[in-house]
Every structure is written in structure tokens, then in C-alpha cells.
């Protein structure tokens, strides 16, 4: 008898341990989800009886201009940000995986953007992207010193190529990106630029200040992409998002890189592989499961992006920055009209379906996560 009770206790203990989290999950996610699902088929506005109107909300959604923009913005944002941040995170992780002195300091510094508050960062970026902000100022400076920069780059590349090719001609072993030659070329190019300035051969150009409006505009970039262009304020938010999320993904990749056996790299070197080949043929395939994780998290996170749009608020036209999550918010809490709970719930359902589709597609394409 006692044995049986002990057995029961053992079987029940995992469920008991799960109860608190399960309770929270069921109430705040399960119940909320099913209520939202129910509301999406009604015309509830918080104060009336919820009348069933079938698919009326969904049809109304697809007729709304703002919803169309939100959908387009969300998909563009999600695709671009996820791919770019995955790629940059991978490259950064590989770079930060070298065993050189002080690499840990760099890892810390590169990780900082992820732990800062997104509200604070958005506010600061709003300042940077003002019409007379720092970003435009830097662009103006670049325009003014354009000829110097061009000259500097040309001389740098030419001297470096000259020295490398000379060595290759003499059949001596030399890497394309030989560090000592790079440094030498930089020094020569600097002197050349300074000398040209001293002798007044080229001067600083008089250019009008760059006053591109980054935030308060409805223009699309790139202009030549037609229907595939996205609004400029959204581009600013993309930059912001990539910058803050890359470090988190980079950490995941770093962890994955530790698992790759060094023997693979040594074998490749023996076979004469270049750094480029090592990267593409060994590192990337070995990190496939991490890439799957990073992309899934990336998609889910970017599809629900809300806080940056809310903070930028009135600084940019609504249709240029609205995402599905913000669209739901705007319909739930309109500034003075009645809350359109049914419409907002329908939009939220669409967002959920979209997320499912994205993750499913991504799983099919990378063929991962099935084990």
C-alpha cells in the first residue's frame, strides 16, 4: 500500500512542478487566445453585447488601406531584418571566436546593444535621425570631403595590389590580404592625401547641407524598386532593430562554434582550403541547427515588432511605420473613438497565422528541426 502511494507521488511530482507555469500559460495565453478568437467573429466594442457577425471583420480588414500597409510593412520588415541579422551575427561570431588576447572585451562591447532598453535607444535614434541631426551631419561631411576619400581609397588599393602582384610575379608565397602590405598601403595613402591637401591640389568641396528627412516622410526607398520599395522611416527602424538584435544571435552562434571540432579545420588546411572555403564548407553547415533557431526566433520577434513604432509615434506618418502589432493596438485603443475590439482581434489572428506560415516555410526550406 505504502509503495503504491510512493509510486503515485513520483508520477505526480513532475505535473505538480509544472502547475504554476501551466496555470499562468492557460490563463494568460490559452484563455486570452480563445477569447480573442471568439471576439474576432463579433462586433464587440467593450460596451455592447458581442453580436456574432461571422467573417465580417476579416472582410473589412482586407478592405482597409491601413491594414494593407501594415501587412506589407510587417512582411518586408521581417524578411529583411531576419536575413540581414542572421548573416551579420554569423560573421561577427566567427570573427569573435579567434583566440587573440582581449577578445573577451570585444565580445562584451559587441553584446552591449542587446541589453540596453529599446525605448531609450529608439529615443536616441530619433535624435540622430532628425533633419539636422548627427546622421545628416556625417553625410554632409562625407560629401564635403568626398574627393579626399576617393583619392585615399584609390591610392590605398593601387599600392596594395601593386605590392601583392609584384610578389606573385616573383613566385613568392603571399596572401591576397597580406597584413603588412595593408598597413604599408594605408600609410602611403594617408601621406598622399595629406600631401595633396597641403599643396592645395584638391580642396574641400562647398556642398549644401544634407537635409534628408529620415523620419517624417512617406517616401520609399529604394526608389527604383517600385512595388518592392519600403518607406524610409521603416528603414531607420530596421537599422535600429538589426543593431540591437544581432548581439543576441551572435552569442548563440558563438556557443555553436565551440562545438565544431578543431580537427575538421586542421584536415581542411592540410587539403589546402582557403579561409573562404573553410567558412562556407565547414562552419556554415555545422551551424545549421543554430541557424534554424536564430531564423525562427528572428521571424517571430520581427513579426511582432511594436515598441519602436509606438515610441516614434507622431514623428513619422502612421502608414510608413505601422506594423500588424501596432495596427492591433491602434484599433484596440483609438484615441477617442470606440474600441474596435472585433477588428483588432481579427488582425491579431491574421498575425498569428502569418507567423505560423513563416516558421513552417522556414522549416521546410532549411529542412532542420525534424530530428
Amino acid at each position, binding site marked *: 500500500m505504502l509503495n503504491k502511494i510512493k509510486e503515485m507521488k513520483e508520477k505526480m511530482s513532475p505535473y505538480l512542478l509544472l502547475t504554476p507555469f501551466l496555470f499562468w500559460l492557460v490563463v494568460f495565453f490559452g484563455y486570452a487566445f480563445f477569447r480573442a478568437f471568439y471576439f474576432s467573429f463579433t462586433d464587440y*466594442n*467593450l*460596451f*455592447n453585447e458581442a453580436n456574432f457577425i461571422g467573417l465580417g471583420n476579416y472582410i473589412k480588414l482586407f478592405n*482597409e*488601406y*491601413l491594414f494593407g500597409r501594415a501587412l506589407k510593412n510587417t512582411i518586408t520588415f521581417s524578411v529583411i531584418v531576419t536575413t540581414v541579422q542572421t548573416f551579420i551575427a554569423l560573421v561577427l561570431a566567427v570573427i569573435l571566436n579567434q583566440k587573440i588576447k582581449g577578445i573577451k572585451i570585444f565580445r562584451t562591447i559587441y553584446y552591449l546593444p542587446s541589453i540596453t532598453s529599446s525605448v531609450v535607444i529608439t529615443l536616441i535614434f530619433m535624435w540622430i535621425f*532628425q*533633419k*539636422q541631426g548627427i546622421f545628416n551631419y556625417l553625410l554632409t561631411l562625407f560629401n564635403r570631403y568626398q574627393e579626399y576619400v576617393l583619392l585615399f581609397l584609390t591610392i590605398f588599393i593601387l599600392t596594395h595590389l601593386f605590392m601583392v602582384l609584384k610578389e606573385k610575379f616573383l613566385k613568392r608565397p603571399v596572401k591576397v590580404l597580406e597584413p603588412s602590405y595593408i598597413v604599408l598601403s594605408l600609410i602611403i595613402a594617408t601621406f598622399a592625401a595629406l600631401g595633396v591637401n597641403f599643396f592645395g591640389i584638391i580642396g574641400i568641396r562647398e556642398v549644401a547641407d544634407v537635409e534628408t*528627412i529620415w523620419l*517624417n*516622410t*512617406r*517616401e520609399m526607398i529604394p526608389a527604383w524598386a517600385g512595388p518592392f520599395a519600403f518607406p524610409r522611416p521603416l528603414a531607420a527602424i530596421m537599422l535600429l532593430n538589426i543593431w540591437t538584435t544581432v548581439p543576441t544571435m551572435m552569442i548563440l552562434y558563438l556557443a555553436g562554434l565551440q562545438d565544431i571540432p578543431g580537427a575538421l579545420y586542421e584536415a581542411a588546411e592540410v587539403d589546402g582550403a582557403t579561409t573562404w572555403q573553410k567558412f562556407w564548407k565547414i562552419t556554415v553547415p555545422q551551424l545549421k541547427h543554430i541557424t534554424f533557431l536564430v531564423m525562427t526566433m528572428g521571424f517571430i520577434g520581427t513579426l511582432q515588432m511594436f515598441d519602436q513604432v509606438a515610441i516614434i509615434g507622431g514623428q513619422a*506618418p*502612421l502608414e510608413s511605420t505601422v506594423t500588424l502589432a501596432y495596427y492591433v493596438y491602434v484599433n484596440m*485603443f*483609438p*484615441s*477617442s*473613438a*470606440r*474600441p474596435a475590439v472585433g477588428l483588432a482581434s481579427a488582425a491579431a489572428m491574421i498575425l498569428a497565422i502569418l507567423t505560423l506560415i513563416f516558421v513552417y516555410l522556414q522549416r521546410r526550406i532549411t529542412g532542420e528541426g525534424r530530428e
Partner: protein
Amino acid sequence: MKKVLVLTLAVFLTLTIVGTAAAQTEVRIAGFGGNDQAIVEELIARFVQPELEGEIEVVYEPVADNFQQVLLNSLSAGTAADLFYMDIFWAQSLIDNGLVEPLNDYLAESEVLKRDDIVENLIDGFTYDDQVYGIPKDFNSLALFYNKDLFDIAGVEYPSDDDTWMEFEEKIAAVSDFSEDFEGLAIAPSFERMGAFSYATGWQDFDEQGNTNLLDDRFVHSFEWYTGLEQEGHAILPADMGADWAGGAFANGNVAAAIEGAWVIGFLRDQAPNLNYGAAKLPVYPGTDERGNFIYTVSWSMNAESEVKDEAFRVMELLTSPEAQQWVLERGLAIPSRKELADNEYFKQDSKEAQANLTVFESASDGHVYPYEFGEYGAEWMQPINTALTEVMTDQMSAEEALEEAQERMERDVLN
């Protein structure tokens, strides 16, 4: 041990029951947080609670942020306060949903509070179908605040209450052209300010059918004049000076004028105490010889689901009593809504604050004055106009194109 436990529980239970039975009626009120909180607490301590000692206990529940959303949520959940602030901007949606108690019967029986005690324009804003739904506690409207020192240096006459739009434009042009460091008028690219000028032409937001026509000649004229000020260099956008709003730009000290309400007085008291400013009424439109203005007002309203309505009305009477409003006025905190206070001693003082408050008070009854609200559309209604204003003032579009697009959007998105 068990017996002691049961005994203690029994004692506590009895105490609670006795305690609740002897409790006073509780009236809960909800207002904004921030600066407002200290004011309302003072009002309650001085004018309300002493009169109601022993009968009614007033509990003040300030809402720190997002007042409208919190109020909507609490009304929906049935836990809202008995009396709450109702901003005229979103009043209609609450009234349409039957959430606010109509006050005509209470006003008829009251001895100290009558409909006629309050300034006409204000109480009309809260009257729907001849029923009053809120008692305005104070109000604000726009005035022209100008920097006297800059005008003196430039040798230009101060803006006067009789200036027309053109005369006003000349004056600020003269100041802004006088020196490179001086700016003319700080204007916001929003209907929140331009609307006052549009109303002066006789244009109205909605016609009888409830449609908006942005291509009406009068509106176009006001739009082109307003944006023209910036395009000609007589006016500057606050964002281009690194300020959030026109008041913030005005506090810098190198801007000749700004169009703001009396709320800027408190702001300037803290941020720019030495700024020598004056206030004039908004300029007059020559075509109609009238000026226009907005009324910003918040009322005390009663929850339709309240269980202590009579007691709540008693508290409302005390909160809007002449003594309470006078106290608020004397501290320069807000402009009273009672007509009788128009002749108050405070307005006769010579200080810049008192005179500015007087100008704002008088502006509310002068010309085509409309409450700052847009029916069931709310802020969404202003969106197409604001987008058009921004695009013209940042040189992205011409006025004609911007207005046509605004009308399209208005019809497609807002008035559907």
C-alpha cells in the same frame, strides 16, 4: 491551539462586519496624475472634505498615465470611479455608449450649481440632445504669446487684439528679418493649431451630412496662409530648432511669437522665468472680421453605474464651487469655468501671467470658437490634414497636391 485560532478568526470577523456597517459612504473620484494630483488633493482637503465630515468620504484615485485607456478599461470591467474627468476630446464615445449619467435632474434640484453658472460655450460642449453630461471644471484656449524684448529690439509694434492676418504676418516678418538669430513665429504642423485659423474663415469640420470638405476655398485659404508663413521664412517648425513643441521653442528666447494655450504660462514660469512675454488674441480674418479658436476643456462626469449618485453629485457641487474655482484661479493654475469669475480681482492684476490668463479667458467667447473634439473619429480625423501640413512645410509637396491627397484619404480612411 485550534480553539485559539477559531476564536481569533471569530473576533476578526465580527470586527470587520461591525466596521463596514459603521462606514461612511465612499465616493471615489479619478483624475489625472502629475501636477494635477497635488491640486486636486488640496481642493479636496480645503473645500470638499470639511463640508462632508462624517457623511461622505472622498477617495481620490489619480491615474498616472494614459487616462483615457485606463478609464475605458475600468468602465468595461465595472470598477470605474463614481466621478471622473472627461476630456471633451473623447467625451462623445463615452456618452454614446451610455456610460455617463445625465445631469439635468440633479442640476434642477441643486441649489449651488446651475447650468447657467457656467460659460455657455463650455457647457454646450458637454450637452448632447439637450442633456448635460458633465460640468466643465476649467478650460483653455489659444492665444498669441509674443516676446516683448525681441519686438522692442527690432522696433516693431506689439501684436494687438485688432490685427488682421496680414498685419500680423508683417509684424513677425519684420522681427524675423531684423536679425539672423531671431525667428518669427514657432508653429506646429498640426491641425491642433491651424484649426483656429481655419475656423476664423467660417469653415467648419463637418457639414450637415457629416462630411468634411478640405477643398473648400476657405479651408484652402487658411491652409495656404499657414504653410506660407513657414515657406516664406517668417515662421519656423519647433522640430527644426530642436524643440518638441512651440512652447519649448518660445522658451528659448529667440523666437518672436508662439501660438499656445495658457498651459504655457506654467511651463514658462519654470523654464524661462525671465522671459518678458505678453499675450494677444489670435489675429482676425479680414474676410469675416472674426477670429477662430479651440476650447480645450475637461469636465467632472458621473459614472452611470455608480451606486452613490446623490452623494457623488454633492461632491461634484463642492469641487466646482465658486470658492474652489477662485482658489485655483488665484494660483494661476487654470482658468475657471464659472461666468461670475470673469470679473475677479485676479484678472485685474498687472502681472504678465494674470494678463495672459485674462486674454485666454476672453478668447474663449470671441469669434468662431469650437470645442476641441472631432465626434466619433477623434484624432484619426486630423491625420490626413497633419500629414498634408508636414509634407508642405518640409518641402516635399505643393499645397494643392497635398490638399487633394488629404481629401482623398479623408474620404477613404476616416469617413468610411
